[in-house]
């Protein structure tokens, strides 16, 4: 079996183990951990679009909202019918939740395709603005659909999100993005990022690569949305506005564009940071913004942008003589 697949399966098993002991963990830490996992999914999937493929998308929260609403709709509307009044067994709930997440992800991917095909002709800031615009349009549309609760949003979503689901999907996201980019096919993403004109000249269909990146990114954003909905138990359209999109973009840029380990670290840091600063509630956001500016001035290539392979090789060299 290939190594990445083993790593994926091992992580899933590990999260299952941790999850079965989750009632021994302090609920507050559990909440923070869940938030971290969801943000890791969002940041890593956006990194495929913004980092590896070099397209600047500002609409990730919009795709997240599509996934959140779809999956919440499924568990709220179909759940009672399929599982009966009693709520079904844990396995049945799990299967329903998995189906809801996948459908949410597919819905978001479809939205990504619909947004991507017309807008990926645009470049740079124009693309950023159009994706932002689509995100806002999706939000306003949800606000006006009464069946989905309108501006009040959906309430009473069943509490299905566990550490197992969040971290399994986080592992799956990392697995998919890393393997996709490292595959022969996936080199095209990086080529599109490096030089679009040159890639076209050697026969790569750059538009196709951009759309694939967009759709895959949107799928995982949708899954993250589903997890978020079943974690917060209530979703409102304003929770997915463009400040949320910007929050995810900040994680990607701070981690270093196209650098998956860095982006994961940044997602963890930026989720925990507001919690750490909670004791000084008043100054929290001021400090957060100041840190953002200072970090960008001090480490312009991303906070966690190290050459991981080189560091590992150096460590290996240091350790080896000690062994022999």
């Amino acid at each position, binding site marked *: 079996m290939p190594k990445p697949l083993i790593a994926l399966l091992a992580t899933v098993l590990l999260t299952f183990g941790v999850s079965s002991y989750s009632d021994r963990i302090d609920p507050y830490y559990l909440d923070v951990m869940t938030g971290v996992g969801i943000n890791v999914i969002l940041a890593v999937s956006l990194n495929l679009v913004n980092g590896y493929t070099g397209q600047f998308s500002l609409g990730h929260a919009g795709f997240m909202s599509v996934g959140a609403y779809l999956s919440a709709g499924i568990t709220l509307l179909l759940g009672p019918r399929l599982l009966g009044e009693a709520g079904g067994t844990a396995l049945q709930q799990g299967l329903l939740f998995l189906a809801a997440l996948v459908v949410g992800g597919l819905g978001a991917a479809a939205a990504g395709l619909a947004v991507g095909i017309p807008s990926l*002709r645009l470049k740079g800031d*124009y693309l950023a*603005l*159009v994706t932002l*615009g689509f995100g806002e349009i999706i939000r*306003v549309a949800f606000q006006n659909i009464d069946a989905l609760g309108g501006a009040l949003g959906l309430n009473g979503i069943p509490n299905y999100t566990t550490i197992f689901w969040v971290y399994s999907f986080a592992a799956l996201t990392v697995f998919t993005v890393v393997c996709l980019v490292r595959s022969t096919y996936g080199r095209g993403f990086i080529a599109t990022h490096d030089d679009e004109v040159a890639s076209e000249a050697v026969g790569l269909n750059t538009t196709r690569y951009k759309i694939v990146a967009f759709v895959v990114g949107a799928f995982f954003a949708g899954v993250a949305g589903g997890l978020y909905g079943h974690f917060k138990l209530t979703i409102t359209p304003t929770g997915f506005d463009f400040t949320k999109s910007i929050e995810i973009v900040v994680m990607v840029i701070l981690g270093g564009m196209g650098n998956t380990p860095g982006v994961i670290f940044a997602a963890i840091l930026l989720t925990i940071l507001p919690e750490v600063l909670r004791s000084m509630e008043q100054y929290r*956001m*001021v400090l957060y*913004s100041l840190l953002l500016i200072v970090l960008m001035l001090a480490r*312009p290539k991303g906070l966690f942008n190290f050459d991981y392979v080189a560091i590992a090789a150096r460590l290996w060299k240091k350790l080896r003589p000690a062994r022999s």
Partner: protein
Amino acid sequence: MSEFLQQLINGLSLGAIYALIALGYTMVYGVLRFINFAHSDVFMVGAFIGYFVGRHLPEGTVWAGLIAMAAAMAGCAILGIGIERLVYRPLRSGPTLNVLITAIGMSLFLEYTGQLVFGATPRAFPSIFPAKLIQVRGLIVSMNQVIVIVVAALLMVGLQFAVFKTKIGTAMRAVALNPKAAQLVGINIDVVISFTFGIGSALAGAGGVLYALNYPSIDPLMGLVPGLKAFVAAVLGGVGNIPGATLGALILGMVETFVDGSRWSTYKDAIAFATLIGILLFRPAGLLGRFTAEKV
């Protein structure tokens, strides 16, 4: 018919305010090629300066209004130049995305510092200009709307003069065209960029006061929505293009006002973006922008 004209005037005054903000976005983009996210918060600071100065002045006189606006413009110009000098200049040689994130950081900083200093609760903006309703053949025009349109028009004519007839304006256009070549012919690029930020922020400050006159409730997060709309307007007209920003802002103001008056009013916020996407699909560089092929 008279309702149509009424909406036209409302749209014109909203568009004029958008135009004042959009000009700052477009000028900075023209020179530095990045979206200055903090611009919408400079706009907010302008409204607050107008509020604090306006409180100490007698209400309802033209000169009091003008003093408040001049103070807001001066204050915002200093703020804009300061932000550029301290935060954006060290990053100028770096990738644009970093400047973008720094701009987002600056925007958050201004918003939340504003909440600390001014408090998060909205404040009522004093009516510094004389408030009167003028009735012309069934049309009701408030004095504020007239002031907004006149002041915005004057400022835009002034800007046009500054950019096309003065030496520094010529230098600004040269930097927008090609920063390296501009430096080679002896233009001090730092001065030009400071000037651009100063003018753009002053216009935003004036926009802040005018906006607060029409929607007299100000809070530290008030810049978010008009700022986003103004940026949409700048892109609509072709970002980097000064007449384009004005045109885009007027179109956006009109479209929004007419949608607001129709039964689709709850979709008002989406319409701005739908217009933008519709136009960009047919003209990818905006209405007045020129599409240039990438050279290798």
